[in-house]
């Protein structure tokens, strides 16, 4: 053990030094990046993607609840003829957006996609999702550490998750 502990203090010092330099650089930005929360983190949120219930998935991903906001605009079709390809886009006028996530309430797993929005990227995303049946689609926008949501029902005539 004594052999292996030897090099560690030095390496830690070097790493701390490097982190210090990086932090100094960040200090020049208009607002420093906040410590990454689950959704803004670099790690794939494996657990959140496995949950069946939408509220549970939101909690697993963000650890808090969202409030509905008319500043979140969720664009989805009224009727999707093919649940396998439902075009869904989200835009928001909120400031300091760090992530946008999409949930489909009655899919086998509620969380469909979660996007990290780094500084400098516009808070707007378009993608295509699968929907098992007619249900609500919810967009969650994380802005300045708070969660805002918008929900819309999409009628699905042919489901896209098999079965």
């Amino acid at each position: 053990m004594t052999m292996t502990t030897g090099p560690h203090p030095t390496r830690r010092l070097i790493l701390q030094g490097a982190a210090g330099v990086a932090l100094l650089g960040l200090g020049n930005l208009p607002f420093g990046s906040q410590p990454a929360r689950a959704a803004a983190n670099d790690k794939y949120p494996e657990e959140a993607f496995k949950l069946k219930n939408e509220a549970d998935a939101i909690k697993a991903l963000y650890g808090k609840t969202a409030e509905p906001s008319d500043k979140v605009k969720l664009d989805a079709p009224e009727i999707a003829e093919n649940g396998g390809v439902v075009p869904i886009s989200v835009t928001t006028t909120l400031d300091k957006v760090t992530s946008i996530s999409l949930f489909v309430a009655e899919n086998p797993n509620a969380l469909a996609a979660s996007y990290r929005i780094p500084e400098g990227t516009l808070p707007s995303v378009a993608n295509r999702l699968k929907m098992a049946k007619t249900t609500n689609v919810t967009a969650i926008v994380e802005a300045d550490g708070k969660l805002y949501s918008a929900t819309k029902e999409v009628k699905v005539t042919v489901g896209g998750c098999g079965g």
Partner: protein
Amino acid sequence: MASSIRVRATASGDITEVQALIQHPMDTGLVKDSKGEVIPAHYIQKLKFECNGKDVFVANWGTAVSKDPYVKFSFKGAKKGDELKISWTDNKGASDTTTAKIA
């Protein structure tokens, strides 16, 4: 093999609009094949866009993203001629990377 990723990135003023289309089955693990056997889940989990050494967009995906996924977003701070690096990894450990010049 040709890249699985097709990207179009166009700069207009300070804003670069990116559209990407990726060839991937995005199997949910719920669908059965013609023999009645379940097709195992096979889907992209992470998709990352980098420009000038900085992440500009990161997607975490589950099985509910459509087959041959499409995504569109915009970011600031790049100019025509800059390079955009796109990479994905799926749940089976496969990955692909490509670069595109911003037009």
